[in-house]
Each structure stands twice: as C-alpha cells, then as structure tokens.
C-alpha cells in the first residue's frame, strides 16, 4: 500500500529536493516512521520529542487536518494524498 506525500520546501533537503514522495503506512504514525527510514532526520522535524506532531506543523490527509481526524492514528488507504504544511515565513 502506498500513499503520496507532498513535502514543503523546508523539508526537501531530506528528500533530495523532491516535492513529492511515495511512502507506506497503515496510519499517519506508521507513515512518519516509514518516511524516517527513507529520509533519516525528517521525523524529528515533524514530531517533537514525545513523538507528537509539532504544533506548528499541519498534516493533511486528502485535504483534512489530522487534528480534526484521529491525529497520528488517522488511518490511511492506498492512493491517499498527504501534505505536510508549515507556517508562513516572513515579509
């Protein structure tokens, strides 16, 4: 089972510049672990030391914020579109 993950610019240094990658996982938690396997260092940017999604990072599954779904336990299915969206930088 594979889902598509859209990667924001600040995290592309982990994905060799790719703005979209394929990854695996039954839920968001497993997906983040799978991303970490392929792109070491990325998990620490998305999650805090307790493993929760950092509060200023928004993760969307097919356009819905996982905070309003089941957070890290939000289940995923083949072909889902996931976006990782940070806050906005200056000017």
């Amino acid at each position: 089972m594979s889902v598509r993950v859209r990667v924001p610019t600040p995290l592309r240094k982990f994905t060799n510049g790719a703005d979209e990658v394929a990854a695996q996982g039954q839920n968001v938690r497993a997906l983040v672990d799978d991303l970490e396997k392929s792109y070491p260092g990325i998990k620490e940017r998305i999650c805090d030391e307790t493993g929760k999604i950092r509060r200023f990072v928004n993760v969307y599954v097919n356009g819905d914020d996982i905070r309003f779904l089941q957070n890290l336990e939000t289940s995923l299915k083949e072909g889902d579109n996931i976006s990782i969206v940070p806050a906005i930088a200056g000017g």
Partner: protein
Amino acid sequence: MANPTAARWIASERFREPKKVESVLDLVGETPLLEIRKTPEGISPGVRIFAKLEGMNPGGSVKDRPALKMIQEGIKSGKLAAGKTIIDSTSGNTGIALAMIGRVLDYPVELVMPSNVSAERKRIISAYGAKVTYSDQLEGSDGAILLCREILEKNPDKYFKPDQYCNPMNSQAHYETTGPEVYRQTDGRITHFIAGIGTSGTIMGAGRYLKEKNSKIRVIAVEPDDALHGLEGLKHMATSIVPGIYHEEALDEKIPASTEDAYAMVYRLAQEEGILVGQSSGAAMHATLQIARKLRSGVLVTVFPDFGDKYLTTNLWVGWRDRMSVGNLKFSI
C-alpha cells in the same frame, strides 16, 4: 498597595490630548514604547526592557511604515502613475498595509500570499477590497515571491511592485522613523536594539540609524532556529530567498528562537503584562530576555511587530492550555 504599577497608574493623571488627523495614513508611526516589567523576573535591576508596540499602527503592524514609504517613493519617482495597480508578495502584514494605503490613495491592490495565511489576514485584506492570488502553501513565502514575479512578467505595464524584499525604501522607512523614535523615546540611552527578521527592513534601517547615533549600540537580529518553524512573519535566512536589502555584516549578533519558546512567551506576555501579541513578538521577547540575563545594566529595546488578534485561529492557540505547563511558566488559569 502591593502592585507598584497599579499605585503609579492610579496616582497619575493620565489625560493626553488624542491626535486629530486628516487621513488614516497620518497615524502611521510614532508608536508607543512599553516597559516590560514583570516578565523579565530575575534580571539585574540595572537592566530595563522596552517594547515598541507596532500593533498601534492603523493597519495593525510595523509594515505600515515601509509600505507607506515605498508607495510615497513610487508616486514621487513616477513609477506608480495613476491607473497602475500595486502588486506584491507577502506573508500578510505588508499585504494589509498595502491594501489599506491603496484604498486611501485610490490605487487598486493585488497581493500574492501562500494559501495558508491566517483566516484573519485574508478577511482583513478582502475588507479593504484588495484582490488576492494564493500561492501553493507547500512553497511558503518564497513560492509567493516567485508567483508574483510570474504575474508581473505577463503584464509588466499594468503594475507597480514595491518589492519589499529588495526596495531600499523598506529599510529607509525604519531609518527615518523607527530608529529616531526609539532613540528619542529612550532619551538616547538605548544600549541594545533587538528585532526579528522577515524582510530585515526593521533591523537594517533602525539599526543603521542607531549605529550612526552611537556605534556602541548593539544591533541584534532574531530568527527562527530552523527552516521548519511556526513563527509567521520571520525568515530563516539560510534556507530562504535572501532579501536584497539584508546585509548580515550590519548585525552584531543573530539569536535563534524556537517556535515553542516564542509561543510560550506570547502566553506569558498576555498573562503577566496584559499585552496580547503575535508569535514574532514572542520570539523577539524571548531573545531579549536571553540578552538581558547576561547584563548588569542596559536599556534594551525590542520590536513587537503586531498584536495577537490576527492569530487567534492559528496553531499558536491550538491546544495552548495543555502546553502552558511547559518549562517554568507559572499560570493562574
């Protein structure tokens, strides 16, 4: 009376004649300087900390200053002729300022912003009647910069682009107003000037003025500690399109601020000082306290770019009560 601030406030006659002006643009600048008295607990009694309240500008942020200066200069130089449309890319506050100024001076305004700017900003800008084009939220403010360039290239004669990242009038506005105001408001006793960097206009312009007045004044920038951050309005220079007006060599020091520390400081300022600000102000205050703790004496001035009402729907306030216990914060609720 236990609380000295209360005693002072009750004892003084606080009547001041309010300003009477012809245009909302006459209200830009001359913002108050607030002494921060409770939050700096534990610092040397010889250190005083002040914050410039840029939220008091009519558009609600520090961006009124550069926006007005860039538009004035555009009109003066003839580049912003009648019938032209003002366009720029922005993370929000510059957009609000341009939308307001365009309305007053009768220029249409088009803005390019990442689609995830706060709902409040979107509504404020639409209330002023400006047109907004949204860029991909995954590309951040650099995506807005690039999309704005594309729109401009297709129709170069239609637009006037202030270009806040590269226009020297951005920092010039702060050289002419913010810097002198701060110097005057501290009777020339300022020793440290601390400000966050977005376009870097504030620190470049006000910093240059202050250095000219007294080369010993330390000019210190605050930036997000990582490329991925939640400090709306601030830029992590190493991973961003570097603004043309930014000259790192003009800084004495750069202090990184984590999003978590900045957010915690926003909660503290609301509960301890009674002032609700945005996250970039939290970052500025956090860095200012770090400097203050190392000093025996000094007059530190930082800039609070805006108030907090534009961020109430953002992640800053998502689950904030759960996070108040982080660190050594003492809260009563």
